[in-house]
């Protein structure tokens, strides 16, 4: 039977929402295939094996078994340099058909290198479609196209990052088996420096364009456009040529009819109000 491994990122000792989403996605695949779903728990301190601890929580979210690694070095931010050897050790122990990571800064540091270690295919933030025993990973590929990976047709493992918190699963499981792995050594060539993380504004990593379903008031546009530009975003008119790798976000008063059928993302509502909320959110992030 196949093994499904979900890496659990901990924040204050609790699994992050994106980790539980990955676990939930693994649960759905495991249920369709009859596979065993393992939650990999890299902990700085041993859990207390109580009803509210991390093992009970992954059991409630669909894990059949837990792989537990306890080492003080795992207290820091999850990076491949610190947590990667633990994931590789777990993959050697199982080995898995599918490895799931949260779509987080930690998951994106770990997933590609683990995938390369396994010679695996890699799917970033796919949607899972299950029909009977057929499980397919689906990702937008732009220009009205999708990329589909049929998990049943792969001749190798697949590594997946997941961000869809709706994918979280619930189970009525009580106790689950816990397998304790010896902590491998981390990479000493990378060191986390002490001190608080400095705050710094984020910037768009690719062209992000907002299309508004109705004309903005010129005064509002003059106020909002520079703030968006500082974050690497811009306003454009419907019908403007779309660049490669550009993400288009439609802000339209109503959901139907869709004035921006080619947009990647859309929010229904008053465009000016939505833009003000977006600016406020990105300035606070």
């Amino acid at each position, binding site marked *: 039977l196949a093994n499904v491994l979900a890496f659990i990122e901990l924040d204050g000792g609790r699994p992050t929402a994106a980790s539980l989403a990955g676990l939930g996605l693994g649960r759905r695949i495991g249920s369709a295939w009859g596979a065993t779903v393992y939650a990999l728990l890299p902990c700085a301190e041993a859990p207390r094996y109580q009803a509210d601890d991390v093992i009970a929580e992954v059991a409630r979210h669909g894990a059949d078994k837990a792989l537990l690694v306890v080492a003080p070095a795992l207290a820091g931010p999850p990076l491949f340099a610190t947590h990667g050897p633990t994931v590789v050790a777990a993959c050697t122990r199982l080995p898995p058909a599918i490895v799931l990571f949260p779509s987080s800064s930690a998951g994106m540091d770990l997933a590609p*290198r683990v995938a390369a270690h396994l010679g695996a*295919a890699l799917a970033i933030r796919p949607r899972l479609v299950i029909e009977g025993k057929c499980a397919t990973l689906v990702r937008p590929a732009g220009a009205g196209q999708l990329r589909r990976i049929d998990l049943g047709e792969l001749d190798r493992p697949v590594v997946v990052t997941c961000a869809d918190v709706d994918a979280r699963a619930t189970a009525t499981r009580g106790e689950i088996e816990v397998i304790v792995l010896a902590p491998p050594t981390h990479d000493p060539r990378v060191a986390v420096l002490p001190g608080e993380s400095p705050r*710094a504004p984020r910037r768009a*990593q690719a062209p992000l364009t907002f299309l508004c379903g109705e004309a903005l008031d010129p005064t509002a546009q003059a106020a909002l456009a520079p703030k968006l530009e500082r974050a690497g975003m811009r306003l454009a008119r419907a019908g403007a040529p779309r660049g490669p790798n550009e993400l288009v*976000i439609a802000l339209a008063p109503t959901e139907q009819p869709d004035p921006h059928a080619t947009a990647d993302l859309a929010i229904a509502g008053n465009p000016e109000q939505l833009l003000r909320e977006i600016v406020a959110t990105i300035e606070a992030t």
Partner: protein
Amino acid sequence: VKVLVAIRLGGETSLGVCERAALALGASLCDGRPETAAALFLLGAAERTGPVTEAALHHAAEHVSMFTPALDDTDYEAYARVLTAACRHLRADLILVPARTADEDLDAAGPAAALHLGIPHLTAVETAAWRPDGKLAVTRREDRGLRALAVETPALLTVRATAQAGPVGAPPAPAPGAEAASFLRLELDALGLRAEELRPRRGLRGTLAESADARTERLPDAAALVRCLCAGGWW
């Protein structure tokens, strides 16, 4: 010390903000350090004139490119194998890769190449500077802010664009004194690779299909949009 900026080109017509950030970081790490030299490596399935021309305006002691149809429809691992071979060929000590590449695999090829090279990697790097002990002081973007780290070279960093990158669509001015350079073209066999070795990686990104499912993803509010942009590596 050789700093290699490696840029993977897809269908774009100009360099993106992450590519420009990697080039700028490479230049800053060489600035005022005569013992440090920059090199530039462009790779892809097909040559893209616009990005190549723009990249040539940046200071680098070496400009190297490799465009081969053997990379067509391959995944991160095929690019990682070419990048690994190129890093060995060019004897790179520090490899800078843009955090967001031309396809949806984000920065997967860089960490995969670091595995094959047996060197550490850090993703989502926003700043890097040499420390007196020869290590690099790095700030990395995490979900809650920036994290300070130190890393020994050789190493590979994937570089994010920062708030200092300037307005959208406005490439930074070329470095003073920089002139358009020509690129030394490499072929696969010069790197000790054969097209057959990359063929098994074809199709692993998934099958492309037209679909009504490729519709717009609807989000409930601004907060959900920002979460989506962060999780997808867009922001």
